[in-house]
């Protein structure tokens, strides 16, 4: 039921936002049902009774599956941590269709916002730019940069859809920009494609080959159906192609692009990158920042080499071209390199074993593992420290904490535990 409630809140907020323009032509009764979808949170059990879907269990199993698939592929793979990603958003006529509520473009905008934040959280050293396609022409909405706010603000201002879509124009534009990126950076394009055709001025196959040569990894998320050319593009450039079933699936698909991808072999050679760690400017000092060309009071960073002012980190110094980062950014990237191993599931028979007198508690939240839901297979164990955790803690540890409390406490109080045994 959690899910349903969350949706209702979301829906309510949205309704207030754009009640007049986008939702205007829906009847009131239709709107409540499309937002709530109350029937979807019910299911029939064996005896034919209706009962609410057990979202929790579903969510947990999905999560476990994802974790397992990630760990199996990404065991020993070098990751590209410094990413230069262009998000290409298709603003052609097809994007205004209403098969996603309230419209495709509203859904895209909402989730692109979430994605940009998540992206910067997971890839603090990376940068993003936004390109839009409208009337068959590709436009650069924001230059590549490290500030989530500026991208989101720019995007929210420009959401009108019209005309045809042109994949080739977008790729050409992005290719032009990404060619100037230093070689250690990973060049990526994420295309959110609503249209089902592309109106191109020339041979798109050549453009795809060009992208392939310049090592741009192109991924596409389609909103309507599978298109051959998109599939071809992704295959050639090593990206992934997926098509969204509905809004929640779209969210899942777009967030899959947030964790850093495996590094491309050519770039995988270890090399040193020159970086500057700028100091935050003193409060109250007035200077003209190099990015907005405006005089600002306080808030900003000074490049250690040329003393130019930059508003946001990470970025590239406009004057001397030095990569500017802060040390917490580097630290945050660290956990991608050494992820915690996925926890093993504990068979329920083991937990229910009557011979064991002592009840097992979750090491994280100290809840009893049996009482927490009386469901089978809900406990996991860390392969290193052998501590038991409940699933909620498991998710928290892997997705937010990135450290195993069991292993860490074990390291600190080694002597204590040894004596206890």
């Amino acid at each position, binding site marked *: 039921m959690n899910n349903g409630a969350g949706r209702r809140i979301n829906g309510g907020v949205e309704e207030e936002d754009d009640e007049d323009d986008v939702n205007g032509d829906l009847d009131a009764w239709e709107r409540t049902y499309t937002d709530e979808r109350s029937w979807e949170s019910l299911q029939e059990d064996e005896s034919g009774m209706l009962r609410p879907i057990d979202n929790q269990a579903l969510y947990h199993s999905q999560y476990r599956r994802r974790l397992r698939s990630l760990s199996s592929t990404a065991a020993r793979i070098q990751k590209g941590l410094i990413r230069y990603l262009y998000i290409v958003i298709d603003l052609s006529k*097809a994007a205004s269709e209403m*098969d996603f509520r309230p419209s495709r473009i509203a859904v895209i905008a909402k989730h692109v916002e979430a994605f940009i934040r998540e992206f910067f959280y997971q890839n603090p050293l990376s940068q993003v730019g936004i390109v839009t396609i409208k009337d068959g022409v590709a436009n650069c909405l924001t230059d590549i940069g490290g500030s989530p706010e500026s991208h989101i603000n720019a995007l929210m201002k420009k959401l009108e859809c019209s005309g045809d879509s042109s*994949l080739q124009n977008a790729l050409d534009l992005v290719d032009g920009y990404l060619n100037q990126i230093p070689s250690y950076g990973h060049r990526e394009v994420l295309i959110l494609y609503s249209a*089902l*055709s*592309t*109106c*191109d001025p020339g*041979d*798109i*196959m050549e453009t795809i080959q060009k992208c392939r040569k310049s090592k741009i990894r192109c991924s596409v998320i*389609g909103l*309507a*159906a*599978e*298109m*051959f*050319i*998109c599939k*071809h593009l992704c295959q050639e450039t090593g990206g992934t192609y*997926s*098509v*969204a*079933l509905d809004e929640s699936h779209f969210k899942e698909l777009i967030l899959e692009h947030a964790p850093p991808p495996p590094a491309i072999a050519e770039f995988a050679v270890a090399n040193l990158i020159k970086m500057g760690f700028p100091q935050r400017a003193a409060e109250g000092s007035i200077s003209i920042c190099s990015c907005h060309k405006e005089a600002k009071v306080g808030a900003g960073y000074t490049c250690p080499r040329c003393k130019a002012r930059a508003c946001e980190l990470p970025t590239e110094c406009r004057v001397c071209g030095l990569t500017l980062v802060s040390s917490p950014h580097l630290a945050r990237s660290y956990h991608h390199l050494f992820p915690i191993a996925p926890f093993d599931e504990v068979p329920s028979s083991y937990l229910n074993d009557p011979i064991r007198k002592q009840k097992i508690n979750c090491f994280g939240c100290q809840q009893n593992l049996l009482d927490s839901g009386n469901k089978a297979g809900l406990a996991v164990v860390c392969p290193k420290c052998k501590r038991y955790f409940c699933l909620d803690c498991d998710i928290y540890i892997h997705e937010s904490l990135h450290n195993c409390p069991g292993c860490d406490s074990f390291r600190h109080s080694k002597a204590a535990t040894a004596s206890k045994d």
Partner: protein
Amino acid sequence: MKFLIEDVTVYFPYDHIYPEQYSYMIELKRALDAKGHCLLEMPTGTGKTIALLSLITSYSFSRPHTPIKLIYCTRTVHEMEKTLAELTLLHNYQLKHLGPQARILAIGLSSRKNLCVNPTVVASENRDSVDAGCRKLTASWVRAMAAENPDVPTCGFFENYEKAASAAVLPPGVYTLQELRAFGKQKGWCPYFLARHMVQVANVVVYSYQYLLDPKVAGIISKEMQKESVVVFDEAHNIDNVCIEALSVSIRRQTLEGATRNLTRISQEIDGFKATDASKLRAEYNRLVEGLALRGNLPIADNWLSNPALPDDILKEAVPGNIRKAEHFLHVLRRLVQYLSGRLDTENVEKESPVGFVSPISSHAGIDQKTLKFCYDRLHSLMLTLEITDTDEFLHIQTICDFATLVGTYGRGFSIIIEPFDERMPSIPDPILQLSCHDASLAIKPVFERFQSVVITSGTLSPIDLFPRLLDFHPVVSRSFKMSLTRDCICPMVLTRGSDQLPVSTKFDMRSDPGVVRNYGKLLLEMVSVVPDGIVCFFVSYSYMDGIINTWNDTGILKDIMQHKLVFIETQDVVETTLALDNYRRACDCGRGAVFFSVARGKVAEGIDFDRHYGRLVIMFGVPFQYTLSKILLARLEYLRDTFQIKEGDFLTFDALRQAAQCVGRVIRSKADYGMMIFADKRYSRHDKRSKLPSWILSHLQDANLNLSTDMALHIAREFLRKMAQPYDKTGSSDRKTLLSQEDLEKMGNGSMHEMLY
């Protein structure tokens, strides 16, 4: 993998097998055991060919004392190449596992155009001129002349082949046409004649339908095939039409004019011969007195014509006296041509039976039935005597003689229809005389009688009980297989109403209704906006397609469609259509998207695949009934009703539905593929029509999709396309296994053993 089917160990070159392939093999094996004919329907993309090949070859390995020969008939050269490629794979696998005992000889036989390696000959543009070019170099008299005069050109490859004589054999193996040509080039032997020679001893022969069905060709090529052969007709859903065409002749004014020219030329030749070499004509005369069967053993290069399905006793009869002399025969032909051209001058449509046609010939032109019967062979003999090599020039007179022989031979199952003009253009006189065969069993009967097992297989044979009646045979096995799918990758829909809820149909009284035309247009317009890449539309006829596209153009619908996708149209011109198809594919490839307008029963509907992104949706506008006012069709329906007790309506529906199934089946060519099919006509929702669709389509046609309007279809299409775009597991989940490994099969084998025991 290898596994047991009853007592036969089957060697199958892949690690996994589809369940339907397995059951297909079981049925096939039972038919072979019973030494009977069988009729098997299995959808395309499920590996019919490899199942057939591996079972039949394995079957013949398991019975080494009675080896069976496999004769595999395909419709096109392209399919022949594909079959041979599969066979190569299979053969390599069997060699690896069975060792030298698995060695077989498999060859493909095609026309000279595809097999010739002589650069000067093969450069000619069409098949007939390649044939003639070859004859100019290889005919016995040309070679005899060359022996005296070295300036006369001959074909080096053929000379070498002749020199090698009996030593010219192919070592065992599988030869594709390409490999055969390469082998011929390397050895310096003519691949065409080598192949024709080896056909008699090969274990597997792959060739075109015509070599068995067309009596003119079958007599030469397939005459000496052993009885212990398995004949396979692949893609045989139109086999009755092929049979009928093989025995039908049409004569136009141009044919008669050409025939007259040919006759003049022949008479000049005869005069020339009389002056120089009268003895040859005399020798021919003597031969004819003795009967046609004793034509003597002519060198293989010379017997390029044979009689159309003459009963054997005719061959032994003596040629009638009035056409034994060359001049007399020419007079007879002249009179015949004159008579025919007189008949063509008619003002009305005439329809006659062969008997009714022959009697006025004998009274007006003085040619009796027996004389007519011998025309074809007599011409053949005359042309050999006159040493005519440019046979492609003489096609017209051959058509006339072909006609005469057929009319003289058959009393039943044919009719002669003379139409003074084309019905669509009554003002332009274009007389045509058609001898049309109504009985498909006539041409195929010798095949059923001669060979031990005949397998007729295709993706669309439904309703499966009608074929045995049409072809007049008794299959020991007739079954239709379903496709096992890991996901529901085909989505058939029946659309009965347009967006305004009014019924749509191409029924004669409704088809020109502007509402129907608009609804069809709206349907396509909505579909182009939700379906990616390629869409194929089939219309019931060219004239209907022209009409509806014109209306769409006037009302602006076409322009709106072009906003989303490019539009390509099939025309009656082959070159134009090929170009359109080529550009259609390019538009699909580059993501622009395209719509292809085509016609059921056209070239495109028969032979072109729209697999993967080339066809995500196929719309069948209307039910493709034949033109029911056509005289030929009416005559055939009457014959079918009188002879086989097949009702007119039944046959028409059967024929229309198999064409529709054939059209929509173009989009799905493998299990990894997916596609939607829309039957846009209210008549499809009726049970008597729908039930005649093949079972693999019917099983996916849900009841909810039987009576849709445009907006509902649109919604289903959206959902379907999204669902199909998701990644999926190819082997299928445990309860719905679609790929069987060797262990699975062994388990199944044990299970059935248990069932038998208890």
